[in-house]
């Protein structure tokens, strides 16, 4: 994962006086699944559209494979894009939609490529029903098939599981993971954070057009992990006691007075007991557990307060 595929430097998009995305910086490496998290209107779609070449940035730079994308349209050819609603002709079949696009790409064996893709997303290539009669889930699958036509290196999916039933969500998730295993780098935005947490390897939290946090899956897991937050007079004095008396090995020293204990088998009263016995003063102690949603809300609320 050392291959930097996309680098965003100070990317900004303004619509008249409204700033949709402000000064965004991000590096995306080969094989990553980057989850973009943000409220409605946070700037997720605009960011993905800029990366996909649909919208021009007002300022900032996009680099693909360490080369500036400006003036190099060929880089955008390597992206498969599904942003907002799938772009499909409603009055023709799934096959015909793909056939039209395959013509535009100049694909040789169109029939084989289309049948393979439809099979991959779980749609029947013999189905002649018009797309307008498709369910939301079928449209989303077809949208993914459209994005995959032309064998892109990067797949950009904006809310791909919107409106899907639980079965559909599981199937799309599996498909995304399969595509990632096959080597695709994926950028995905979603409101369904728990679902995103099952696939993304990197998270970007965006709020009012600004990136407020970029963190890896491990970092997020650590932040959302159950822990005991311990405030003491002197962490240096407390640690040997905790290690010796309670065999605590999973902990993190946040600062000179704060320690996070990640050991699930330890109870607050045990810590209070051993530290009191050793005469170490406890300032505060509390159990802390956050879901991804809570974490996201906390981060966006604090960012909102900063803006206000």
């Amino acid at each position, binding site marked *: 994962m050392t291959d930097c595929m996309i680098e965003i430097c100070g990317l900004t998009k303004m619509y008249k006086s409204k700033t949709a995305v402000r000064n965004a910086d991000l590096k995306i490496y080969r094989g990553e699944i980057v989850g973009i998290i943000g409220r409605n209107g946070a700037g997720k779609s605009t960011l993905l559209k800029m990366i996909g070449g649909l919208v021009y940035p007002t300022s900032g730079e996009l680099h693909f494979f360490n080369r500036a994308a400006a003036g190099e349209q060929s880089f955008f050819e390597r992206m498969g894009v599904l942003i907002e609603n799938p*772009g499909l002709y409603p009055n023709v079949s799934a096959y015909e939609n793909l056939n039209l696009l395959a013509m535009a*790409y100049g694909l040789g064996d169109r029939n084989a490529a289309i049948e393979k893709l439809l099979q991959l997303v779980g749609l029947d290539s013999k189905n002649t029903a018009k797309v307008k009669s498709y369910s939301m889930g079928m449209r989303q699958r077809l949208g993914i098939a459209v994005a995959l036509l032309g064998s892109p290196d990067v797949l950009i999916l904006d809310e791909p599981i919107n409106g899907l039933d639980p079965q559909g969500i599981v199937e799309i998730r599996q498909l995304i993971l399969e595509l990632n295993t096959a080597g695709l780098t994926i950028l995905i935005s979603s409101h369904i954070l728990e679902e995103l947490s099952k696939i993304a390897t990197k998270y970007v939290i965006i709020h009012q057009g600004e990136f407020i946090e970029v963190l890896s899956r491990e970092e997020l897991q650590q932040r959302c992990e159950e822990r005991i937050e311990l405030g003491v007079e002197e962490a240096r004095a407390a640690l040997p006691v905790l290690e010796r008396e309670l065999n605590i090995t999973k902990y993190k020293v946040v600062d000179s007075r704060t320690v996070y204990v990640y050991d699930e088998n330890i109870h607050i009263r045990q810590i209070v007991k051993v530290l009191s016995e050793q005469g170490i003063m406890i300032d505060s102690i509390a159990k802390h557990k956050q879901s991804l949603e809570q974490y996201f809300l906390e981060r966006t609320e604090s960012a909102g307060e900063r803006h206000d």
Partner: protein
Amino acid sequence: MINLLKMDLHRFGRNRMMYLLLLLFCAFQIFGIFMMKKYEQPVEGAIPVSRLTESEFIQYNISQPPSWMLIYIAVFTIYFYMSEFNSGFHKNYISMRNARLHSVCSKLIILAIFVAMMFLTMLIADGAGRRLFFDHTALGDLATLITLLIGQFLLHWAFSILILCIAMIAKNLLISLSAGFILALNVIGMVLAALEAQLTGIHLSKYLLINTLVRVKDFNSTADIVHTFGVAAAAILLFGILAVRYKLKEDLN
């Protein structure tokens, strides 16, 4: 470019609206000839409509507002562009190299084909209608007819490109259709010509696209040929470049 054109041609060939418009145009053209026969009134010193050659008949028809051919062209242009734009299908291929430029060029070629088909339909309908109701199918001087057809084809194609520009910029079916109807009725051209006559005495409005299109031309006069082809070429270039430039800079939201 060729690939995008292939895609657009495939869509064009399967476009029911195109066939419907051609059929309607053909039917109304024949019906129009029937009505001309029924209500024909001889004017002293003028050749009756039923005795006009095909060249003269075409000029007579086009100069009668509203130009139905322009209305059909406007409807098709807007429908063909907006059906792709509203479905969002263009977003699937727009990231391809030079796709924005090629997409507009491909649309321009499709519009040229449609306009050519309209003229072909008109010739067939005129031939059938004049045969049936006038019992007169004389084409007149062939060179004049060909010059007229090429000149009118270019002017009508330029009009379709103008409508394409409007549809691209307005991004709205109703606004584009309204603008198309207003232009086809030549409201703007007539108002400008009237203002010009009242205020300045200069006659620049005759070089406007629709004014040139509806004006009865004498193709034996070099000045008229230069005027027709000059206006058509300038309009095709101007609106073509405008359409391409707009698409190149457009944010596809």
